[in-house]
């Protein structure tokens, strides 16, 4: 089986890296990168648009192009997150935690360089794991049922609360608020409407994109305006900027253990069906904080806080193809459109695709791989002019970011109400920042809330009905141990710190 897989992988590699085939993923990548510079406009819109254009194509160029489109859209979101605190996509919200402080200190080049290398290497890691896993795909997916998913989400939430230094009460409150916001809308379990006040706008709940744009981008620009600082990096000329791409790349190798663990987290989260890249990024960030000897440095511009989420996020792409290709369960909007495009060309996910058409699957994987490296390379090439953007005057950048936030909030689902929502969250985010409330738990809880309720409900129902045999579910015990560790480790750490001081 492994031999068969390797053969297919080799064949797929040959198909991607041959003339003129290689032009398709390259064009797809560059197109997606250009579009993805606008926050809220992810590759999804572009991919949906590309479907009618590619209808008459053969399957091979379609797969090549869409691999490029999926890969190209991801990295630009991290760049805007680092430069302006504007998370272009969900996963890049974890990158801004330390990426933006680095840009504030004038190290935008280091941060972007590190993000580029970490994500390109991460995607390579994810793809290697994917190749090894192809024969085990079905079992890997079936291993994650509702109880495992529930515990994975609880682990994610507990990690986020624990890493919010010293403010466990406020982090817990913010988590509660986020979970409540996640409950707004049509309740899938009972068909009832919760907290919608009779409006169809709230039926589908509160969107992540307008919330993030408000909480981070708008709030940050208001704060910058109030602070009276002249530029983001506090520097007026490009000459004053420090750091370099090489420093960023070196950071990846200096923290290679962290890189591997983060990429592994990303790959595993990717394989779990229905959990997206945002969870992967935040879990990796949380892991980086927890395993650091000096966790207090995070959030103030620690390069490891850029490295970990970026590695996890791009490593996830490989793993995330597993549920899509083997079962047709997309973990993100992008993979959902990808699946629709494949289906139109008669490439239905499932056993046939994973056996007879395996070389084509590898074409997709390799073109995604190529695309991830190309985005990183282009990102590094643009790093000079991009870093210079942090020396623009705040009084020019602030209105521009406000405008872009409005565009992103609207473009996400084309609803004007989301623009109102984004600026509402902007005000909330500003006052939260001013008074020391953590904003990350709010976002992560909003993101995980729906899944948490679903899987809690399914798990308890199945338990009631006698359908859950805990002895047959070893992963449950592993996850319980991880959660317990989350709750215990900070106490042990605090005690040890006190002993050292005494």
């Amino acid at each position, binding site marked *: 089986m492994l031999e068969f897989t390797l053969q297919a992988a080799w064949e797929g590699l040959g198909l991607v890296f041959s003339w003129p085939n290689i032009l398709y993923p390259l064009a797809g990548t560059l197109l997606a990168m250009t*579009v993805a510079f*606008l926050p809220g*406009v992810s590759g999804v*819109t*572009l991919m949906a*648009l590309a479907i009618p254009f590619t209808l008459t194509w053969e399957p091979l160029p379609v797969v090549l192009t869409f691999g490029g489109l999926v890969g190209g859209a991801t990295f630009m979101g991290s760049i805007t997150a680092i430069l302006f605190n504007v998370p272009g996509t969900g996963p890049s919200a974890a990158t801004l935690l330390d990426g933006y402080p680095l840009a504030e200190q004038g190290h935008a080049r280091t941060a972007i360089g590190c993000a580029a290398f970490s994500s390109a290497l991460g995607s390579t890691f994810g793809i290697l794991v994917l190749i090894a896993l192809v024969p085990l795909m079905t079992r890997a997916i079936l291993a994650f049922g509702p109880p495992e998913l529930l515990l994975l989400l609880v682990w994610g939430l507990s990690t986020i609360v624990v890493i919010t230094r010293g403010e466990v*009460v*406020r982090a*817990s*409150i913010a988590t*509660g*608020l986020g*979970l*409540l916001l996640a*409950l707004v809308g049509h*309740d899938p*379990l*009972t068909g*009832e409407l*919760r*907290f919608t006040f009779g409006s169809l706008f709230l039926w589908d709940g509160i969107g992540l994109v307008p919330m993030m744009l408000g909480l981070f981008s*708008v709030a940050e620009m*208001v704060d910058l*305006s*109030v*602070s*009276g600082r002249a530029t983001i990096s506090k520097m007026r000329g490009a000459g004053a900027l420090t750091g370099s791409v090489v420093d960023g790349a070196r950071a990846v190798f200096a923290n290679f253990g962290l890189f591997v663990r983060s990429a592994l987290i990303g790959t595993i989260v990717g394989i779990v069906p229905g959990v997206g890249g945002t969870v992967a990024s935040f879990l990796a960030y949380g892991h980086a904080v927890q395993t650091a000897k000096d966790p207090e440095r995070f959030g103030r511009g620690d390069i490891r806080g850029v490295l970990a989420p970026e590695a996890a996020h791009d490593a996830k792409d490989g793993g995330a193809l597993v549920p899509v290709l083997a079962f047709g369960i997309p973990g993100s909007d992008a993979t959902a459109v990808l699946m629709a495009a494949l289906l139109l060309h008669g490439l239905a996910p499932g056993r046939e695709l994973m056996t007879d058409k395996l070389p084509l699957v590898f074409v997709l994987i390799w073109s995604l791989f190529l695309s991830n490296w190309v985005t990183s390379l282009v990102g590094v090439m643009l790093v000079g002019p991009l870093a210079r953007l942090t020396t623009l*005057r705040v*009084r*020019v950048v602030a*209105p*521009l970011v*406000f*405008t872009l936030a*409005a*565009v992103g909030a*609207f*473009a996400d689902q*084309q609803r*004007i109400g989301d*623009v*109102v929502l984004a*600026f509402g969250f*902007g*005000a909330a985010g*500003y*006052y*939260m920042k*001013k*008074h020391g*409330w953590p904003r990350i738990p709010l976002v992560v809880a909003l993101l995980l809330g729906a899944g948490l*309720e679903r899987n*809690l*409900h399914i798990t308890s129902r199945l338990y009631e009905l006698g359908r859950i045999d805990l002895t047959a579910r070893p992963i449950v015990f592993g996850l319980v141990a991880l959660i317990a560790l989350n709750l215990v480790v900070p106490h042990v750490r605090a005690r040890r710190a006190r002993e050292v001081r005494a």
Partner: protein
Amino acid sequence: MTLARQRIALTAGLTVLVALAAASATTLGPAARRMPLVVALPTLALLVLELTRHLREARVEADDPAARRVETVTFAWLGGLVAGVWLLGMLAGLPLFLGAYLRTRSREPWTVAIGMALCVWVVLFGVLDYALGIQMHDGLLGSLLGRWRS
């Protein structure tokens, strides 16, 4: 309002919000209200704890009146942005906001203000509306005008 008072107001506001959510959840069916109540009640308890902590604190920090003024003005501009988009639509409202902000608030030269507003318009119309086919919002006035014309 001092900083301490603002902090109390923020926490109190959140407390009221969560209390309202809990109250409105009780009107739901037994299965639908389970999760909201499980989340809202502990959150409410923590908020009350946090609020009492604020109230006991006797810190008096003076808020910088200049900063306070910038805050108010900035939020007024953002209110204007939302109202502008709502009334005039994305294509007119956003460039108008950007140009006006750059000219009157940031005191940039006319060329910069108009140039950047034009850039935003080109991106909105050219990239989003035309190339990506994302339908722009017409705004209240735009749709009223459309109705009146036909």
